[in-house]
């Protein structure tokens, strides 16, 4: 009964979203002008309906209602509760419903937070959002309803892919979707502004918080996914340039560029056409990601059950929405008034350069992902595009962007003074060069390629971190004024400045971690019987025992490893090899010993006549790879709470 109500609610959400779009369209006709405001109420109702539909799916999963086809395929009674819940978004159908719910809830949030938006713009945003909502709920309802029943109810479910039964991955999809779908609001704002033919500083200020919010979710989502790959796949890699990873990375890059160009539009009324272009692009890439993962054109660990027909439907939605958005853009962008003037040396200019470089980086990821697919489709030949390609294209572009980053954050608006900025950065530049030299020589690598990578990584990472510190130093005059005064100034800095500094420091830390981990990690593999030892750098790993463990829905072979260094016992690691009878699959459960910065990483491999294969990895500075992006997200959150972004606060005081 509840399941049928859920399907009903999904249908209701579809109709309400359609009505939401139609009232706005109808409102454009003179005699009906008044009806556009009904879109506000409709957006709230549609969101409630979508939440109820999703709640019904959760209920079906929690109660293991195998009469629902999706539950039967992806759940199992023995699964822990957390994974029963996460099973709700572990499949194509369920995750589409999550996508729709998030989209309609964001639409409702536009209504709830939109008291300060001019009615015309607000209703147009709701109209576009309603249309998007109707397209996606329609797609879910008619081609992928997760609440569809089975004629014959199975006794037991087929269980979720055991690799996906993991805490990090339980939260990875919802966060990712909050990011992906958050860009739909940005897209709607862009289309609405193009219809109105007016983009001004206020528009940029309304769009920026939405972009930031979605960007923060996407950042955390990607980081969690990467962390999951790091410890679940069992070979210690954290980024594979897998097409599906790229699919989530492309909207992130577009949004990162947008965050920076929207600042220029907000502060200086310039770069309008470019900012709108990026606003359209971010959600286009989100939809492309959804298409790539679900269409079956990719074979990947991440790919959902493949179904070409759904893929074609998603492709049609992608072409309809993005096509309409960009056509409108081509028609209207020319008429956007160009705003503020800036000199060639100014913060605007450095941000334009930053955008150019991020866009080049984005184009390499986009090409690297799509080129093999297009080539296979047109010529039948297959090629592979992997890490070596990105190392030659993506990394230089991002490296150049990082090189100008400290200049951008210290330069004045309108007309900057390169000399004075350079004077403030010269110390940071000197220390970074020193760090580069130290990194290249002291990190213990004789190989020239690796020394170069380490040098560049240390130099750039240090440069971005020290450059960000210089922003704080310049604003507070620490060491030049009494400490109490500097502290007062520090506390007086806008939250957006703190956010910017934290995000950039996060980027620097990530680069340091990434380069040290990839260039200096150690691996040791051996077949060990109980009592035998393995050497891993300065560590000695002994297999002390082997036991068999029964989990709730699996049985595991567990190795107990004692890890010692010259000073004594470091930790005890218990990697497992798990067998899930429900799906007849084996997974490896990595054991991690967290050192402050480094990870010791152990995998139990296959048994052999000489014992069990034990694979041990020493991943130096691995902590920074995941801590850096989280710091970026924290920076984003701080920025989000800056009072300047909360237009409501500013305008209430000024309305009089």
């Amino acid at each position, binding site marked *: 009964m509840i399941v049928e109500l859920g399907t009903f609610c999904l249908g209701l959400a579809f109709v309400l979203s359609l009505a939401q779009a139609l009232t706005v369209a109808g409102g454009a006709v003179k005699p009906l002008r008044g009806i556009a405001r009904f879109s506000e109420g409709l957006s709230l109702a549609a969101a409630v309906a979508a939440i109820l539909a999703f709640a019904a799916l959760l209920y079906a999963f929690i109660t293991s209602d195998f009469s629902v086809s999706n539950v039967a395929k992806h759940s199992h009674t023995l699964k822990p509760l957390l994974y029963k819940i996460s099973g709700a978004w572990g499949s194509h159908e369920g995750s589409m419903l999550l996508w729709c719910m998030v989209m309609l809830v964001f639409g409702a949030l536009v209504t709830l937070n939109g008291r300060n938006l001019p009615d015309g713009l607000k209703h147009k945003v709701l109209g576009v959002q309603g249309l998007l909502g109707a397209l996606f709920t329609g797609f879910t309802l008619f081609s992928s309803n997760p609440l569809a029943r089975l004629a014959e109810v199975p006794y037991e479910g087929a269980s979720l892919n055991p690799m996906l039964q993991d805490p990090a991955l339980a939260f990875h999809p919802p966060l990712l979707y909050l990011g992906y779908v958050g860009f739909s609001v940005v897209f709607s704002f862009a289309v609405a502004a193009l219809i109105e033919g*007016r983009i*001004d*500083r*206020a528009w940029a200020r309304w769009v920026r918080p939405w972009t930031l919010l979605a960007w923060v979710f996407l950042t955390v989502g990607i980081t969690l996914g990467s962390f999951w790959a790091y410890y679940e796949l069992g*070979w210690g890699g954290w980024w594979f*340039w*897998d097409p599906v990873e790229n699919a989530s990375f492309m909207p992130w890059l577009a949004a990162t560029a947008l965050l920076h160009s929207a600042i220029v539009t*907000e502060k200086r009324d310039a770069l309008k056409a470019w900012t709108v272009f990026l606003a359209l692009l971010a959600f286009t890439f989100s939809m492309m990601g959804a298409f790539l993962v679900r269409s079956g054109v990719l*074979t990947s*660990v991440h790919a959902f059950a493949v179904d070409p027909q759904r893929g074609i439907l998603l492709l049609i939605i992608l072409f309809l929405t993005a096509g309409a958005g960009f056509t409108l853009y081509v028609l209207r962008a020319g008429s956007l*008034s*160009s*705003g*503020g*003037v800036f*000199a060639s040396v100014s913060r605007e*200019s450095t941000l*334009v350069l930053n955008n*150019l*470089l991020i*866009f*080049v980086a984005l*184009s390499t990821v986009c*090409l690297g992902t799509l*080129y093999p697919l297009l*080539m296979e489709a047109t010529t039948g*030949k*297959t*090629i*592979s*595009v*992997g890490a*070596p*390609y990105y190392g*030659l294209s993506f990394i230089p572009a991002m490296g150049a962007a990082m090189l100008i980053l400290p200049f951008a954050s210290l330069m004045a608006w309108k007309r900057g003074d390169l000399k004075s900025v350079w004077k403030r950065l010269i110390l940071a530049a000197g220390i970074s060069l020193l760090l580069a030299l130290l990194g290249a020589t002291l990190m213990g690598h004789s*190989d020239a390629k690796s020394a170069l990578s380490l040098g560049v990584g240390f130099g750039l990472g240090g440069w971005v971190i020290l450059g960000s510190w210089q922003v704080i130093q310049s*604003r507070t005059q620490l060491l030049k004024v009494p400490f109490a005064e500097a502290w007062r100034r520090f506390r*007086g800095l*806008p939250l957006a400045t703190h956010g910017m500094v934290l995000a950039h420091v996060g980027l620097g830390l990530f680069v340091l971690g990434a380069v040290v981990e990839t260039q200096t990690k150690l*691996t*040791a593999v051996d077949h060990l019987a109980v009592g035998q030892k393995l050497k891993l750098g300065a560590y000695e790993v002994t297999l002390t025992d082997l036991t*068999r463990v*029964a989990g709730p829905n699996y*049985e595991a072979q567990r190795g107990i490893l004692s890890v010692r260094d010259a000073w004594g016992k470091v930790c005890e690691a218990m990697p497992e*090899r798990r*067998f899930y*009878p429900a799906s*007849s699959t*084996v997974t490896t459960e990595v054991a991690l010993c967290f050192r402050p910065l480094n990870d010791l990483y152990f995998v*139990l*491999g*296959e*048994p052999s*006549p000489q014992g069990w*294969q034990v*694979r041990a990895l020493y991943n130096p500075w691995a902590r920074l790879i995941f801590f850096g992006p989280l710091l970026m997200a924290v920076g984003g959150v701080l920025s989000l709470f800056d*009072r300047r972004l909360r*237009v409501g606060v*500013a*305008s209430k005081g000024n309305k009089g």
Partner: protein
Amino acid sequence: MRGLLSVLLPLTRSFGPPSPHRGEGIKVFLVLLFALTQIAAAVLPGEAMPDPRQDQRARDLYSEVRCVVCQNESIADSSADIAADMRRDIRLHIAEGLTDTQIRDTMRARYGDYVLFRPRFALTTALLWLLPVAVLLTGGMIFALMNKRPEKTEPSALTPDEQARLDRLLDGDNGSQS
């Protein structure tokens, strides 16, 4: 396979408490432990080359070559049998004195373009390599032109009154900035 199983089956007797899946499950368990070799990886201890410089070359090449039966893994990461064979081939080639480029060519001749993670530059892959450069150059040119001819300030679409109100709204709190 059966031979290996008979070696290992006694091992299973020492496995922990009886579980509902014992018996049939254990056999499947063991078969799968062997079958799903893609999960755990990779270069085995016996594979190191005696000369450290050659070993480094070998390992750099491993990470450029794709395991042809796996999902998006290099032969450095994969523990599939074929990946081990391909690694052995690369070591043999290095020992024979072939250069890295020659080794890449041999791999390509045997397995096709698909096997290299760095696509070679050819007519069919020209766009892949050149388009980002084109984007950079075009963007750079637009940027240079934009700086050469500074735009004139166009009259605001807002009335002076509206403009004043907008400025108040936007800058009302700028006092808090240093």
